[in-house]
């Protein structure tokens, strides 16, 4: 009876894992296939990887994606952390108002956020392109940064900051030496969250990019509508490998370095 239950549970876990990963593994297998066939594996080859890496459109899209993700995450982290610190000294009413509006891009449908930003850029006569994608991604990232920094700020009390001021530290010095180390984990996780949000975004980019500039997402979208090229499999395999390694590192590296420290 108990054994049967365990078997049932295990098979369920495996079933869900298969559902989640079988499609990705299939893409990986096809990316190494020598022929275009989707059914028969005709031999191992790196042909599609070569094709992908010699395609300037792919390389340009990769560059844009990384630049926008990095730039928007950095800027959002700076602006968001500043805002989170200031929010603490605001009155309750205005703080709740600001927080309410801050949540909008996170809760609202991406398609509406994308459209509203597009209308705004056109109304302000900002020509659509790299800069508008960057602005949109910063807007999308800000709530994630603020919501990861705020809880850390709540935990670190104002007292140590004021003590530093009383002991003669300037506010800037006190901030960098006292407050920032306290909230650093929140700032870092906000940055990483923002970075991945930006990497993953398709819908908002789709509406704010204008013609002639692609990120990986929009490039894949236009390729998919035209029919799949096997080099797309190579691209997705590569991206999956990078995401897997980065997340593995972020999640487990601290534990590895500090020895086998188990969860409390």
């Amino acid at each position, binding site marked *: 009876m108990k054994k049967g239950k365990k078997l049932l549970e295990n098979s369920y876990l495996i079933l869900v894992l298969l559902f989640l990963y079988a499609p990705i593994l*299939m893409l990986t297998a096809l990316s190494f296939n020598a022929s275009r066939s989707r059914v028969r594996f005709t031999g191992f080859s790196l042909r599609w990887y070569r094709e992908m890496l010699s395609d300037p459109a792919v390389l340009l899209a990769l560059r844009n994606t990384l630049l926008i993700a990095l730039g928007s995450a950095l800027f959002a982290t700076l*602006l968001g952390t500043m*805002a989170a610190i200031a929010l603490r000294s605001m009155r309750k009413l205005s703080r709740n108002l600001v927080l309410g509006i801050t949540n909008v891009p996170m809760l609202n449908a991406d398609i509406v956020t994308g459209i509203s930003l597009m209308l705004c850029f056109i109304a302000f006569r900002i020509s659509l392109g790299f800069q508008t994608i960057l602005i949109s991604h910063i807007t999308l990232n800000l709530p994630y940064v603020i919501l990861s920094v705020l809880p850390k700020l709540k935990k670190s009390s104002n007292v140590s900051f004021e003590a530093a001021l009383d002991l003669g530290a300037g*506010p800037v010095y006190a901030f960098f030496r006292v407050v920032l180390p306290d909230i650093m984990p929140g700032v870092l996780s906000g940055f990483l969250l923002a970075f991945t949000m930006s990497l993953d975004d398709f819908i908002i980019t789709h509406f704010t990019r204008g013609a002639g500039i692609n990120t990986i997402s929009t490039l894949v979208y236009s390729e998919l509508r035209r029919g799949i090229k096997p080099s797309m499999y190579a691209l997705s395999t590569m991206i999956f490998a990078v995401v897997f390694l980065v997340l593995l590192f972020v999640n487990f590296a601290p534990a590895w370095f500090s020895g086998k420290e188990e*969860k409390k």
Partner: protein
Amino acid sequence: MKSKRMKLLALPYLVWMVGFIVIPLLLVCFYGFTDQSGSFTLENIAEILVRENYRPLCLALLLSAVSTAICFLAAFPLALILRSRKIGRGSFAAFLFILPMWMNSLLRILAWQTLLERKGVLNGILTALHLPGQRLINTPYAIILGMVYDFLPFMILPIYNTLSKIDDNTINAAYDLGASIPTTIFRVILPLSVPGIVSGVTMVFVPALTTFAISDILGGGKIFLIGNVIEQEFVLNSNWNLGSALSMVLMLFIILSMALLSRYDSGEGAMF
């Protein structure tokens, strides 16, 4: 004095917030309530009553509700099992179930397109087994499959987070008092995991309701959801007024569903 200087730190963000959150949304409302010449009209809003517009909306509501239900039915037992195995947050096993969340969603759609296409992998296997090929792609089922695949991790994460916070003693108390396993699950664990379920449902339902990429690619451009209609009004037809009006209707449905859900949610979501 000091707190005044602190407040100045918020200034750049406040300017950004007004410029890129408030004004854009006001612009959507402006376009939604005006015609091409800029004078006030309710005609664009009324367009939702036209068959070509309300059918995609109803279909989107139906498909996203079904997908959300499937995601919940799949994620809840999974989270229960992970909990009972004492698979902690931050363990590798938990990591594996959350990881696909960070995969580019279009690449995941690409995988299903490859599987389901007329000459795709599944039909290839069927032919190799001398079975008749099936029409898999361009059906509502393909879209539901795509939605479930795309958004399942967003249901797993919050439910798993709340479940792993439930105290073992609460559950053991239920067993000690003679409750059976199903009773414990439905009367103790399920009510305690409501905040996680609420954020999971929001994180699946809203993107599923408003998607246009999944329906466009797995529906072969033949099955229209409200997201596709809005996207076409902006990108193809350049009718911003109608597109904005339909977006407002869509927002109304999002607000309604959130208001409905927030009645069950006492505290903050379980994302963070």
